[in-house]
């Protein structure tokens, strides 16, 4: 049990708007919430690389191929930065990179629902950049104010890189929207596929206890519903401007409150998918991570061993 006096002082620090560092004392609940959040965030970045990665070899122009390459690389980079934070926080538990990555393969860490879904066309690669990155940017921009300083600092860097992702995603979508009938219908179908997953993306209307505690600890600052409303408000007009439709007949903005009405996603189905890794692509993508991490553990072991050995050589 944490010392109640230190806990009270800690909460007072948060109240004053103080930021917390990795080496500061923190209540174990705060640490555990941070680990859960940042671990999942980092792993989602890494698993989020895979749906788009499929389209790198097939990107239809040299420029698109370079850009998509760079974008997927950034996702891995964000995963790297975030995992480093989660690793530092997990040190008291004796868990580092290997353990945090093992969790993906053992199904002990969840990742965002959108990365369990299939991306069957090039338009999906574009719509992921447009809508999924758009949603992620909204969530991450909120986290710029996080009470955990290393997270807020890293988010500043990540959001700056997301700026390129946003431009890239929009550029792909705009090109398809301006293209042939076939290109436009490919785009419409992709939007139809991604809209419901995006409604789930921000989480339930009523937040769970963990999310509420994260608000109280100022790890995050907006509710799920606030984030979803901001997303709908930004993206519905843009999709409609492109002459495309959204697959939700209930979508309507209340002129008085500005709030949007929308059809609830199938909460049970998505929840089960995220919990059990039972989505259309969950297992295939975990298999890719298993290859990278588990089946190539020999590489990491070998180069560690070699580095130790070479350091011992005379003249090293």
């Amino acid at each position: 049990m944490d010392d109640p006096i230190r806990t009270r002082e800690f909460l007072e620090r948060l109240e004053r708007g103080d930021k917390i560092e990795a080496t500061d004392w923190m209540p174990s609940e705060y640490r555990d919430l941070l680990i859960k959040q940042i671990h999942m965030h980092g792993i989602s970045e890494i698993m989020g690389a895979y749906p788009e990665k499929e389209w790198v070899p097939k990107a239809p122009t040299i420029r698109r191929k370079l850009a998509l390459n760079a974008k997927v690389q950034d996702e891995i980079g964000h995963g790297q930065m975030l995992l480093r934070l989660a690793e530092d926080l997990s040190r008291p538990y004796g868990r580092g990179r290997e353990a945090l990555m093992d969790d993906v393969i053992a199904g002990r860490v969840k990742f965002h629902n959108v990365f369990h879904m299939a991306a069957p066309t090039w338009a999906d690669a574009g719509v992921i950049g447009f809508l999924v990155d758009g949603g992620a940017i909204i969530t991450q921009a909120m986290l710029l104010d996080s009470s955990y300083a290393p997270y807020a600092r890293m988010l500043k860097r990540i959001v700056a890189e997301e700026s390129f992702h946003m431009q890239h995603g929009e550029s792909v979508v705009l090109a398809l929207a301006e293209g042939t009938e076939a290109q436009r219908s490919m785009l419409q179908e992709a939007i139809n596929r991604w809209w419901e997953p995006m409604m789930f993306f921000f989480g339930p209307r009523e937040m769970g206890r963990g999310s509420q505690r994260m608000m109280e600890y100022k790890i995050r600052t907006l509710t799920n519903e606030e984030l979803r409303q901001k997303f709908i408000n930004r993206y519905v007009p843009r999709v409609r401007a492109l002459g495309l439709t959204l697959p939700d007949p209930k979508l309507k903005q209340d002129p008085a409150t500005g709030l949007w009405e929308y059809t609830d996603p199938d909460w049970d189905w998505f929840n089960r998918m995220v919990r059990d890794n039972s989505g259309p692509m969950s297992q295939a993508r975990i298999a890719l991570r298993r290859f990278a991490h588990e089946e190539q553990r020999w590489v990491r072991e070998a180069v560690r061993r070699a580095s130790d050995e070479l350091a011992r050589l005379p003249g090293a």
Partner: protein
Amino acid sequence: MEQAMQEALIRLVTPIADDEWIVGHRGSEWLGLAPELEEDLAFSSIHQDEMGHALFFYELLHALGAPDPDRQVYARPAEAWRNACFVEMPNGDWAATVVRRYCYEVFDRLRLDALTAVGFPPLRDGLKKIQREEAYHLKHFQLWMELLANGGEEARHRLDAALAAVWPTLPDLFGWGLGEAETTALGLPSARALKDAWVREVRPRFESWHLSWPNDPPSASWNGREGAHTPHLSELLNTMRAVRELAPDAPW
């Protein structure tokens, strides 16, 4: 510029552009799959560089009268590609990838150094930045070779298997894709001389890594420099073009 010179330059630069493009494409297949996140980033940047170099060479070719870069990449049949079959081979495991990339980088540096002798200013201007990036690529894969070679039993075993698989595919890498007279006229060393220089560089390294020398690279039975490719290239090109084919002339 004389037409003969122009054509010679096109023949000289096409295999280089194609090598770099295919190396970049194969490298991008590793995205998200490297043995560690940090290596994923480094490996991806290196292969974006390679595609960037290819783009520079394709633009140079375009200025010499060849089709534009996107056409070169997306609209040429396999037999019109001049990359070495060596670079079109599937990646294999990490050890095979490291071996192939190391072999290529040593060759690429020798080739770039030789190219500075060609009296064509737009080429020479572009080489500087490319050489700088390639110097880093070479160091990267040289370090990987050293680490795997000193990495204990499993790494050793995999490295030996990789060498056995990669070595027989080496021969067509060393060619320029030009006739002998043309090679000399452009001020370039012969393919034979390039290969010898490559052996002089690689062999002592192998010794220092205690890797046994698998014999000098055999001579060619296929030759990508003449457009005779393995089925791996057509497969790669089909994948690469799958999206663009849906609307070949539309903007994407």
